[in-house]
């Protein structure tokens, strides 16, 4: 008989490296027509980082995502980057891109200010215009300013910057210190069906409420959460590398090492928790890794809620769940007849 249960798990997760420096650098070049090119040493590994970095540069320049092209990952051409690791790209590389874009923007402000009859610090970049703060009727198209900067005044609008999260080393005896600049928080709630005759677990639904600071691109945040949950489901229920007595892997293939497929995926509902972190680019933190952190815990708590057994060793495979149910009910575990 299938028994339904639900389980909750929350978590915290840091952004960036533990204590050690993990800088990112970036270059932003504004073209004569007001579009821009970003150079970054990070690598797109499927998470959508190039899109997000483009949006961050666009925001700082007051243009749209399509107006920015991002060039990445060539040590001959792009600045250094500590890489697509530790959920740090939006936060650390994003800050570098924001700072570089602001530097390039400062050149535009300097060029536009005398034309608009104001000081550079009175200007804003918005809606593809350089405009006077508080008096938006007085403005110039960003393309016009960029053209003037490069072609008339001979001062091309280029910015380069780097950023590194501030940390404090941990005391080796007590571990006291500030290992990370910031953390994100999240809760996931899982609903499962457990078949108490076979031990099989079906994850029906997961509600995920994740903090990422300001979501630069909510669609990509949702994508990360869904992907993270799929890895969490595998970690909870299926995936396990097995070794023989000689230390060789028994199942090094995708036939016997079971990763979740679309058929194993639950209904996922993603909620982004409203937040703003002043240390991140436009309030953003990160979301990559945390999405797969609480999933297994929530599923295992749901299994316990459904059938009253607590599995303390992952993964919760059907044989393990069934044996625990039978032990709880005082039943002998039936043995398969010998072949």
């Amino acid at each position, binding site marked *: 008989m299938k028994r339904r*249960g639900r389980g909750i798990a*929350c978590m915290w997760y840091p952004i960036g490296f533990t204590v050690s420096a993990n800088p990112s650098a970036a270059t932003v070049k504004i073209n004569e027509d007001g579009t821009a090119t970003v150079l970054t040493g990070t690598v797109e590994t499927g998470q959508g980082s190039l899109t997000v970095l483009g949006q961050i540069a666009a925001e700082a320049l007051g*243009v749209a995502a399509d107006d920015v092209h991002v060039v990445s990952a060539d040590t001959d051409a792009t600045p*250094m*980057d500590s890489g697509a690791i530790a959920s740090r790209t939006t936060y650390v590389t994003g800050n570098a891109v924001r700072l570089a874009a602001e530097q390039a923007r400062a050149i535009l402000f300097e060029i536009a200010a005398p034309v608009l009859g104001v000081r550079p610090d009175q200007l804003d970049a918005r809606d593809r215009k350089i405009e006077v703060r508080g008096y938006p009727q007085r403005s110039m198209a960003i393309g016009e300013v960029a053209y003037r900067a490069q072609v008339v005044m001979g001062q091309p609008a280029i910015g380069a910057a780097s950023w590194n999260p501030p940390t404090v080393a941990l005391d080796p005896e007590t571990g006291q210190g500030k290992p990370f600049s910031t953390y994100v928080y999240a809760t996931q709630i899982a609903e499962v069906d457990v078949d108490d005759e076979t031990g099989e677990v079906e994850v029906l639904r997961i509600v995920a409420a994740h903090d990422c600071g300001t979501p630069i691109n909510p669609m990509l945040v949702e994508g990360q959460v869904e992907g993270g949950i799929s890895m969490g489901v595998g970690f909870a229920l299926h995936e396990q590398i097995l070794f023989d007595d000689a230390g060789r892997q028994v199942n090094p293939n995708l036939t016997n090492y079971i990763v979740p497929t679309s058929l194993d995926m639950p209904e996922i*509902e993603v909620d982004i928790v409203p937040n703003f972190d002043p240390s991140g680019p436009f309030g953003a933190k990160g979301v990559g890794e945390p999405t797969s952190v609480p*999933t297994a815990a929530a599923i295992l708590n749901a299994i316990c809620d459904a059938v009253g057994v607590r599995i*303390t060793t992952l993964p919760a495979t059907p044989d393990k769940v069934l044996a625990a149910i039978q032990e709880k009910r005082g039943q002998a575990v039936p043995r398969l007849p010998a072949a």
Partner: protein
Amino acid sequence: MPGKKKVAEKQRQRPLETPRIADEVARLPAVVPPVAYPIETLVPEARQQTPAVGQRAQRVDGRMHGLGQTQYIDDLAFPGMLHARIKRAGIASARIVRIDTSAAEAMPGVMAVLTGRDIPVNSFGPSLQDQPVLAAERVCHAGDGVAAVAAVTEQIAQDALDRVKVEYEPLPAVLDPLAAMREDAPKVHPAGNIYATKVIRKGDLERGFAESDRVFEGRYRTQMVEHAALEPHAAIAAWDPNGRVTVWCTIGRITLARADLARTLKIPMNRIRMIGTIVGGNFGGKNEITQEPVLALLSKKTGRPVKGVYTRGEEFTATTTRHPFIMDYRTGVTKDGRILARKVRLVLDGGAYCSWSETTLGKAAILAAGPYQIANVLVEAHVVYTNKTMTGAMRGFGAPQVCFAYESQMDEIAQALGLDPLEIRLRNAFVEGSLSPTGQVLHSVVVRESLLQAAQRFGWKGARS
């Protein structure tokens, strides 16, 4: 004169007209859809909107993925390119007595064979440089590479591996992390099996437990897991006549990779160009060099570009995995479910090499007590060598493991005290300005908000107890 140029081009390529051309053609993507550009589609409006932040902007790489036109490493081919394969030890612990490559070298189509002795600096690693590029003297796990072959086709390279004869003297292996911690355990590396320890100490643990109404204890364990990215580890290295090497690779951090490559090849950094391609999944598994020094040296030896693509089997046995954890939790609480003290002991199975273990250990220790206000905390965490596949970075750096433990125990405590699982978490959760176990003042904290938001969305009405 375009006609003359065409002839010259043809002559230049003639020496390369061997079966490998056909092989390369056969390896190109089977279906390249006939497409006339520009493709008329609706312009995704979000990408045109200002302000840019907060827009559901389509991914810049989405269209290429959708049309099957993204070029992954295995979609790239260069004239004269060779294919490399690496021979794996297949034995968990052994001394290498001798390696005989002569039969492999004599095979038609084999252009070069490489062993660990050919590598200028045969060690690497992000914190401890304890991993050889190719094992030369000692095999520490079954997935260790012992020799590499570059041949005109992948099949010839694969066949040549069988003709590389390696003589091993088997050594005792240790596979269980707890056994590896004992004094008399076989040593994976000479310095000893416990290779890193982290301690986090806050408040007065004994007093915290003394003041507690109830104390809960539990042991939780997690398994070894593979990243299972769709695209395997892949790279192409091309050494040019000026002594510069260009490497197209799937590594997620090319700055570090270039430093590692410069160190292992013993050449200046400005003679290395690393190009990160669009990667088909990383999840922490592609954060350091693997076969890149081997491919670079094979290219140097042969004067041709050399491609290496790991098999699915190598993805499991020869690259990093997620650390199995053994976690002992002892938690003291008041009758109304407030946590007063938590003691955690973590033992991480570190596999044969350090890789990102120190980072995983550190993050796991810092996060181990959970997102809760606890005045008295002691975390003691060790990572130990075993003769198994090396463990390294994987999405969460130890956080999914400790979260499984602390959140399982939270529910056990809630059940024993007759509290709703949501309620016990709300009572203990960090708030703005809370002190973390390392004494850090936390900001932009929204644990409670996330709990309440998820509970509302889910329609949480408490669990059975």
